[in-house]
């Protein structure tokens, strides 16, 4: 046994990326998933988006409705993909994989964040899909390199946030059946109580309060700011980042605390 001293923080970062790397390696044989995941944003933009744009029912200021919801649909598809990520650890628990990792000296937070990051990187495909559809529909996108970089970063962080949330739920409910139930119950409220497909201005007061507590709202705001040409942020991009990063940090810490429950 070799014992070299490794600084806890370096160790944590290193192990996080080891977990991410191997989660991503598993993707090589998993291309059907990419295609099926493209379907949902396509339906929302092509059908829901176009119909509502025609109806003129939504007042989205000087931004056309389709432009308004394109970032919302990206955020939504990130949420929908990430929120079911936790099913994987339940599967790994039913095998003995989780147990073996927990019996290794890997920091628990690295196991959790590593998986979250890999979900983040997997979800980048959704950005490609939503950008392609937006181009097709004539959404006025911003091609500023810094803005594009921000979009990719926000997508990764948002998916990390929601997949870690999902993992926390998995650690609590532990079985596939209950997990699917909870997942279904959570996605729609998170989606509708946000600014994804309508501005918060038109919400009743109580819902507006809820939407301001919903991290998805800040994801949508950040994406809208960076994706669209000539759009202004409601909360300020830095504030959006602070909310997203702080929520993720809290969830990773909670996840690290709960993860060992999967071994019992």
């Amino acid at each position, binding site marked *: *046994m070799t014992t070299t001293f490794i600084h806890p923080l370096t160790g944590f970062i290193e192990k996080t990326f080891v977990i991410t790397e191997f989660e991503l390696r598993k993707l090589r044989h998993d291309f059907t998933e990419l295609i099926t995941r493209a379907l949902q944003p396509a339906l929302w933009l092509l059908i829901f988006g176009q119909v509502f744009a025609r109806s003129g029912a939504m007042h989205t200021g000087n931004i056309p409705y389709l432009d308004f919801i394109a970032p919302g649909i990206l955020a939504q598809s990130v949420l929908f993909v990430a929120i079911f990520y936790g099913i994987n650890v339940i599967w790994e628990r039913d095998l*003995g994989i989780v147990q073996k*990792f927990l019996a290794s000296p890997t920091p628990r937070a690295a196991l959790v964040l590593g998986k979250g990051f890999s979900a983040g990187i997997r979800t980048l495909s959704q950005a490609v899909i939503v950008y392609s559809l937006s181009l097709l529909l004539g959404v006025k996108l911003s091609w500023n390199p810094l803005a594009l970089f921000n979009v990719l970063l926000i997508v990764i962080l948002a998916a990390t946030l929601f997949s870690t949330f999902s993992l926390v739920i998995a650690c609590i409910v532990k079985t596939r059946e209950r997990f699917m139930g909870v997942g279904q119950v959570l996605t729609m409220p998170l989606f509708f109580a946000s600014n994804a497909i309508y501005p918060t201005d038109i919400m009743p007061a109580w819902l507006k309060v809820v939407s301001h507590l919903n991290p998805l709202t800040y994801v949508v705001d950040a994406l809208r700011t960076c994706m669209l040409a000539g759009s202004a942020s409601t909360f300020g991009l830095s504030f959006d980042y602070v909310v997203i990063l702080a929520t993720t940090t809290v969830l990773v810490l909670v996840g690290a605390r709960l993860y*060992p429950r999967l071994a*019992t």
Partner: protein
Amino acid sequence: MAEVVLEIKNLTRRFGTFTAVDGLTLSVNAGEVFGLLGSNGAGKTTTIKMLTTLLPPTSGEALVAGFSITKQAVGVRRAIGYVPQAVSVDGSLTGYENLLIFAKLYDLPHREQPARIAEALEFMNLTAVGGRMVGEYSGGMVRRLEIAQATLHRPKVLFLDEPTVGLDPIARDAVWKHLVDMRATYGTTLFFTTHYLEEAESHCDRIAIMHQGKLDALGTCKELEASLGPGHTLNDVFVHYAGSALDSGNNFRAVSAERTTAQRLG
């Protein structure tokens, strides 16, 4: 006197009002092959989970390679390898990748990783299939890969929970041949649970029999057989100490997990 590598003192675990492990005390010497026997629900898996730091004990203590399972969990984790009963390698990675991730997680020096992995594959007779997806492996190959993965960092103690469940006799023999070789080459202490008495008889230096969470018998197979009087077999010993436990078995989840494992490996 031999070095003690595992010292269990009054180890107890309760789940609500049910006591799964009840005041277990025993010690295991370095390099020993130690078998923990008992019927379903006797507390074997709970014991292994506590010793591998997966489950905190309700009371009591154990020192693994000198580290306390309650206060120095990370030290314990560095010193041990663990092969759970269920399948613990990833079917969507190759055998090589399954080993590489553990080489990295256990901080094996970067330069030594390829050689160590090659050696582990060779040792477990998996060199030819190292580049194949584990999803295509046979049950015996999966088990051998799991052992390779759990011993890549040369642990002092290797814990195995029912290492041969669901394997055919030939695969079982192969797994044992490699385990025995490993002890001979690296001096690894093997601590394992099993249902198969003949495995205990042919491979263990000493065995312990647990019954309803308590340690009922401890010694070499010969000693235990002799303790019942002349002409007794290990089977008689087992029935004598654990025989009354017919209906105390596992819960549904444990049984279904065990059968699934058997199915996947078989």
